[in-house]
């Protein structure tokens, strides 16, 4: 089936596969593209400030008021239509692909259906323009308009309904309570984390989608739809499809209008092409690469306008765009350079999207981009053959040329990945923007099969958002359902269910500690445990209790989303929704998963190792001694603090089975309690093991821990070893890390895993540096590690960037799953990234 399998010549981009760029030069805005228009475009996008825009919120509210009595799904459809028909639109200079997210470039629309009280609170009490990072500005007019709708949304937004429906037990561990598992993403925002079926959209166009819905509506058996739920759903789908068509046509009309006034003949011609493209793809399947790109961008943008989800991903761009590319090149419609320029302009258009996040979220998830708009390249095709295309290389060149951190690019490697693609990947990684991340088909495909997807769909996986494996176009995976701090579970397990550091400073003191209560169930005292195995048993029992509560909370959220926020437009683009007549939010997709992640693997493993070694084996410390030290945040116990942070204790990340087996136990216990639990959309739970940057937020709610963490310090990131303020716990270098980390079962963590590497530039310099980097990834992947991402930056550079932020304004670093401008990150996150062990081998 694939074009590649029939082809003889090797895929190649516009630069030689081994073209090298300077190492550790991850700065944006340095005119690194060979296309002047792309450089101008980048500089223009960098110039403006980020703003908050009221239009979407006002138009949605207007529709909710006007159509109050309509069924919810129809109301949501009409609200989307009201936005698409009435929001102001524009086309700027140098643009070739039109479209905005119901707000101007770099302006954040507001989604009051999901949450609004924090928006009003922050607007009044914590102005966005006074933030230390992630700053936004708002006009007086927009602020006034937002205030006007405040009263309407009281008690109606999803967050308020969710919280009102959760009981005390269900709340106590969450971000609303003690804060050791975070449900905030889906409590306050949309779900996202999906990919539309672009192949279907490209094959049928919006008219084709409409036909499909009309057929279903006409053949609907009223006896099987007594309450009219399906009929309403289909009518809602039609409303949104037609609104989408009109939105495209508004851009076509606008382009014509601007073209009429345009004096430069070349630009006039371009504007007419934009108009033709928008008009044609408003209803029809695209014919050229250019048309397909226009349809891809704006159709995706409408998903963002409807859903408020981040990590709305693009998927396998080098696969589904390939037929258009090939046709254009063969027919002479476009040259390779034309296509390259379009890809780069398209990449930059991802910078137009922005999302306003609340002030607590931005501590952990800094960065103002939409987030998670991922593209997946390479890998095998549905039949298991290498799927590399010219576009694979061209997209990697586009990263090197644009250096913008968007879209988030993942490259899939497999056993037959061409050497040329590995070299290209390594050379782009070495630039140091943190892009691309590398995924391992040898782990991801078995993990996907284990989750229950078909072999074809598993081979065709793409990466959603930061880390998650997804079968694009037919899945609603709730991939970012929660971040769950397993280090807190160990704390409760050694302290009989009570928090270490329990006291008046805690928000919950009055209902909990002061009343003589404890947070979790009583699972025994460390001092009374006869052996270390009792510690592990207590850990297991605490885990079971808290995973149950977490899942109850997630299920409540899921049901509220289904009830209040059906997504009829998205449903037209995800397989089986229209077929089944069920909204994507309610289980209409072919695959329905829920993915909560474990955080703090290293912290838990090293804590367990310290307890096992010092208390049960060497008997150097008593249980009371350790617990006292933790309660006192190590003050007065400095030697113990130094010791647990020293290499005299077994530590995860050093290829030391003693600690690595504890890490495996810690994560397996989490996975065992999460996996295969049913969710309310007819699917099941899939555990993930990664933190993205939630490890900083989760650290802020936890007192000192036995691994040598002081109170409030971040817990360990993703699968990485511990690095506390006293130092890094891994001392044996990258091969030892790779081996330790691959002792964990990545295939079991089917929602995804992640290991962040940080290399000093000197160790990846030159051809040998490049080849050693490739060899490292190869070995990690042979051992079934799933996913790696890289920072190529020296500590010195990061220290300088903290001191002189103006000189490093556009320095990109890898956070986890995504890249962001370092100087715009929150301080805890900056220090967390700086503290990751720098692997330097001089």
């Amino acid at each position, binding site marked *: 089936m694939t074009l590649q399998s029939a082809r003889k010549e090797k895929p190649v981009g516009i630069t030689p596969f081994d073209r090298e760029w300077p190492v550790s030069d991850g700065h944006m805005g340095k005119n690194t593209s060979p296309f002047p228009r792309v450089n101008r475009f980048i500089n223009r996008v960098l110039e403006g400030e980020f703003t908050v825009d009221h239009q979407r919120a006002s138009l949605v509210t207007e529709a909710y008021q006007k159509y109050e009595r309509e069924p919810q799904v129809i109301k949501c459809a009409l609200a989307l239509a009201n936005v698409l028909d009435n929001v102001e639109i524009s086309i700027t200079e140098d643009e070739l692909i039109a479209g905005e997210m119901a707000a101007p470039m770099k302006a954040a629309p507001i989604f009051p259906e999901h949450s609004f009280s924090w928006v009003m609170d922050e607007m009044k009490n914590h102005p966005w323009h006074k933030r230390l990072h992630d700053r936004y500005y708002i006009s007086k007019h927009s602020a006034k308009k937002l205030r006007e709708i405040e009263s309407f949304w009281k008690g109606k937004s999803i967050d308020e309904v969710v919280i009102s429906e959760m009981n005390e037990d269900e709340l106590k561990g969450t971000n609303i309570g003690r804060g050791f598992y975070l449900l905030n993403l889906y409590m306050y925002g949309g779900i996202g984390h999906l990919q539309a079926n672009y192949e279907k959209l490209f094959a049928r166009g919006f008219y084709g989608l409409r036909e499909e819905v009309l057929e279903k509506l006409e053949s609907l058996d009223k006896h099987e739809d007594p309450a009219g739920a399906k009929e309403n759903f289909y009518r809602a789908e039609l409303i949104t499809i037609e609104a989408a068509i009109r939105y495209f046509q508004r851009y076509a009309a606008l382009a014509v209008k601007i073209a009429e006034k345009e004096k430069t003949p070349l630009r006039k011609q371009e504007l007419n092409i934009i108009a033709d493209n928008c008009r044609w793809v408003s209803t029809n399947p695209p014919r050229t690469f250019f048309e397909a790109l226009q349809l891809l961008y704006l159709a995706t943008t409408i998903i963002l306008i409807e859903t408020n989800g981040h990590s709305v991903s693009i998927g396998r761009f080098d696969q589904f765009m390939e037929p258009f590319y090939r046709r254009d090149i063969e027919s002479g419609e476009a040259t390779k350079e034309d296509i390259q320029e379009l890809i780069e302009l398209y990449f930059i258009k991802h910078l137009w999207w922005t999302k306003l996040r609340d002030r607590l979220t931005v501590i952990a998830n800094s960065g103002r981009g939409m987030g998670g708009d991922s593209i997946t390249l390479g890998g095998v095709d549905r039949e298991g053959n290498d799927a590399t295309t010219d576009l694979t290389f061209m997209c990697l060149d586009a990263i090197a040329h644009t250096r913008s951190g968007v879209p988030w690019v993942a490259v899939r490697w497999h056993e037959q990945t061409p050497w040329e693609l590995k070299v290209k990947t390594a050379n782009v990684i070495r630039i140091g923007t943190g892009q691309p991340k590398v995924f391992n088909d040898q782990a991801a495909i078995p993990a996907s099969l284990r989750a229950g997807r078909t072999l074809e769909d598993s081979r065709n996986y793409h990466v959603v958002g930061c880390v998650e494996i997804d079968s694009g176009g037919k899945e609603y995976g709730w991939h970012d359902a929660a971040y769950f701090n397993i280090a807190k579970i160990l704390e409760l397990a050694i302290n009989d269910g009570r928090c270490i550091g329990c006291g008046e400073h805690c928000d919950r003191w009055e209902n909990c500690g002061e009343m003589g209560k404890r947070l979790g169930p009583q699972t025994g005292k460390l001092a009374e445990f006869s052996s270390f195995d009792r510690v592990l048993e207590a850990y297991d029992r605490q885990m079971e209790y808290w995973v149950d509560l977490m899942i109850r909370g997630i299920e409540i959220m899921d049901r509220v989303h289904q009830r209040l926020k059906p997504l009829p437009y998205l449903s037209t683009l995800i397989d089986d929704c229209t077929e089944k007549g069920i909204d994507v939010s309610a289980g209409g997709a072919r695959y329905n998963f829920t993915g909560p992640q474990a955080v703090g693997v290293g912290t838990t493993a090293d804590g367990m190792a310290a307890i096992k070694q010092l208390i049960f084996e060497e008997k150097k410390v008593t249980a009371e001694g350790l617990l006292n030290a933790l309660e006192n945040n190590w003050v007065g116990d*400095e*030697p*113990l*603090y*130094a*010791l647990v942070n*020293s*290499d*005299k204790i077994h530590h995860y990340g050093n*290829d030391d089975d003693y600690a690595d087996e504890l890490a495996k136990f810690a994560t397996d216990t989490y996975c065992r309690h999460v996996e295969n639990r049913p969710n309310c959309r007819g699917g099941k739970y899939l555990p993930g093991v990664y933190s993205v940057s939630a490890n900083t937020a989760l650290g802020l709610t936890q007192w000192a821990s036995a691994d040598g963490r002081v109170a409030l310090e971040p817990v360990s990131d993703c699968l990485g070893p511990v690095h506390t303020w006293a130092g890094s716990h891994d001392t*044996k*270098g*990258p*091969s*030892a890390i790779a*081996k330790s980390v691959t002792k964990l079962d990545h295939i079991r963590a089917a929602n995804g895993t992640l290991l962040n590497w940080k290399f000093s530039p000197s*160790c990846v*310099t*030159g*051809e*040998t*540096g490049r*080849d*050693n980097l490739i*060899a*490292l990834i*190869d*070995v990690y992947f*042979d*051992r079934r590690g799933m996913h790696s991402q890289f920072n190529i930056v020296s500590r010195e550079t990061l220290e300088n960037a903290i001191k002189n932020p103006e000189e490093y304004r556009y320095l990109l670093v890898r956070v986890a799953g995504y890249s962001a401008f370092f100087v715009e990150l929150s301080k805890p996150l900056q220090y967390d990234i700086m503290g990751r062990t720098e*692997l330097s*081998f*001089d």
Partner: protein
Amino acid sequence: MTDLNKQGYVTNIQRYTIHDGPGIRTEVFLKGCPLNCKWCSNPECIRPAPEVGVYPDRCIGLDKCGFCLSACPAGEISALKTENNRVMAINRGSCTACLSCAKACPANALITWGKLYTVQEVVDAVLEDVPFYNKSGGGVTLSGGDPLIQWEFSLAILKECKEHGIHTCLETEHHISPGILNIVYPSVDLVITDIKHMDPQKHRVYTGVDNKLILHNIAETAKKEMPLVIRIPVIPGHNDSRENIEATARFIVGSLKNRVLQVQLLPYRQLGIEKYRSLGIPYGMEDFQPPEREIWEKNILSLAELLKTYGIPAVAGSSSRPSG
């Protein structure tokens, strides 16, 4: 049969080194060196016996800890020098190198340089990274110090590694009896050696020994057609004159018949200061002001060019692959 229980002193087994030989390697640093180079960056490998290094900055305070003082068998007249509530240094005269203080220290303020390993233990550690060697064309590198100070121990390691099919690289100063080289070389796949100076007098001043034996051994190594990489540590104001580099070039072309895989010119970096202090050894380059990076980089590049005019495969730095 290789004696796997044979013991030797190792200061460090470093995994994933990438500059001393091809590919990803495990580097075994052995203790003891016949030379005493002024610029040595591994002073912990110079003396043959184990010793304790002191890092006062890491000391958490004698009032809070003091485990080292209690552990020192010298008792009242402790071998540990203290100041401002910290352990500062070791009175090497009264220290018996029993290492008790380093074992007791929880904070790595006192550390042991040189631990006794069996051949089996070293080889086991080397075997951990076989998949990385296989992917990258790497292997094991014995370094130091000079591994041939403990040549029987080193030979046993090399032999056992060869048994496991691991590529072996030996970094040696070549200040050793030629007969030992003859015994060791059959177990070595690549030799890395330094030429620090061509002038015997200056060589003695900077390294403590004459260069005659060294140059003889290097010439013999080339004659045996051993794969050979030569390194010149370029120390500004010491050996970086064009005369010295040209003399080196004549030696390589003449005595070695240019039978070298690569000649690497390595920049001097002031790396070892902390270690010198920790060992209580005066650092010969303490007051040396290294020139600006642009200047030495340019200088090294021009010296490499100079060597190339002799047809020598010279490179600046150690991260390019030999073309041979």
